[in-house]
């Protein structure tokens, strides 16, 4: 309920008005000009060859890829065979381990090429001495860092291994580490040649 509503209406009609600053129109003008400029930018028609290439790619992607599929299958089959072989080999090894613990340990040690941490460092230093330019490349630094990281992992595993109680999982990990280290060293050496 409201009384004397006409007083309010009258007051509202006499409320002050506010005039915007000139820069508001300048901003509007700029925005409009920008929009107009953008709409008047030229259009460019692509050469016919672009569509031809797209069309070719589309028709290629529509066809099956038997060759790639077969290759993938072959690779997967070989990988599976290798994995089975590795498991069987390790099982045999673990069965034989009951004869002599020391023999098992010796086999593990001979799997890798870099038994001694210093030996690994010496090889890396030798590469750097012979070809210093290789040692400043990011690939070399990356490979070296990875080798050192692997070496640390290797030392941890070696501490966990017990001469008189073989652990197949640790042995596999050790072998993999050593193989990767060897691979990285080979890569670096190939670059120096």
């Amino acid at each position, binding site marked *: *309920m*409201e*009384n*004397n*509503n006409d*007083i*309010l209406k009258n*007051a*509202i009609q*006499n*409320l*002050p*008005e*506010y*005039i*915007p*600053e000139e*820069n*508001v*129109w300048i*901003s*509007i*003008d700029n*925005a*409009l000009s920008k929009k*107009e400029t953008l709409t008047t930018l030229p259009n460019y028609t692509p050469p016919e060859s672009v569509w031809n290439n797209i069309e070719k790619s589309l028709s290629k992607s529509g066809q099956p890829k038997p060759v790639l599929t077969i290759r993938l299958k072959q690779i997967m089959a070989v990988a599976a065979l290798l994995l089975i072989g590795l498991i069987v080999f390790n099982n045999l090894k673990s069965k034989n381990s009951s004869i002599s613990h020391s023999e098992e340990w010796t086999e593990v040690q001979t799997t890798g090429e870099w038994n001694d941490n210093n030996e690994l460092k010496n090889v890396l230093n030798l590469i750097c001495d012979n070809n210093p330019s290789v040692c400043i490349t990011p690939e070399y630094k990356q490979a070296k860092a990875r080798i050192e990281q692997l070496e640390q992992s290797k030392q941890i595993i070696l501490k966990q291994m017990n001469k008189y109680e073989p652990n197949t999982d640790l042995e596999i990990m050790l072998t993999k580490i050593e193989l990767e280290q060897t691979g990285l060293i080979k890569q670096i050496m190939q670059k120096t040649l």
Partner: protein
Amino acid sequence: MPESTNEKIIVQGCLQNNRQAQKNLYDKYKTEMYTLAYRITNNFEDANDALQEGFLQVFENLKTFKGNSKLGTWIHTIVARVAIKKIKNKIHFVEINDSITNNIIDWSMLTDVRYLEEAIASLPAGYRTVFTLYEVEGFKHKEIAEMLNISVSTSKTQLFKAKRLLMEHLKNTIS
């Protein structure tokens, strides 16, 4: 030249992206729209932005204006919407179920319009917006409800609460 004919010429010019026509349209409505934007936002900087953004929308959408309402009303709606958007995060409406008919608001003490302007500026964003749109700008509750995404009854109750608050402010100021 009659006002409506003059406005039609301006609109035609605007539709052809004639900058002078656009400026004429802006000049014609700038004060009304700026005042509306300021009353809603309660801030001159936000009002500047709302005016700029609102007029850009007007020029962009003028081709869709069918002439079902007056051009000024159409521009009012656009600027009001833009201004509301600026303060949307400050508006919090609460549905009120209590009876408001027992309260009586008497405007007899409103002797100076400056007090009213101050009192409007002191209102919380939601009350101020509803009061401005309904009492000052003449929008209907249905239109306000749609603009603010609230129910018609909320718009009505918020308006009454806004008036009650205005009264309290006026009482305090005058006494």
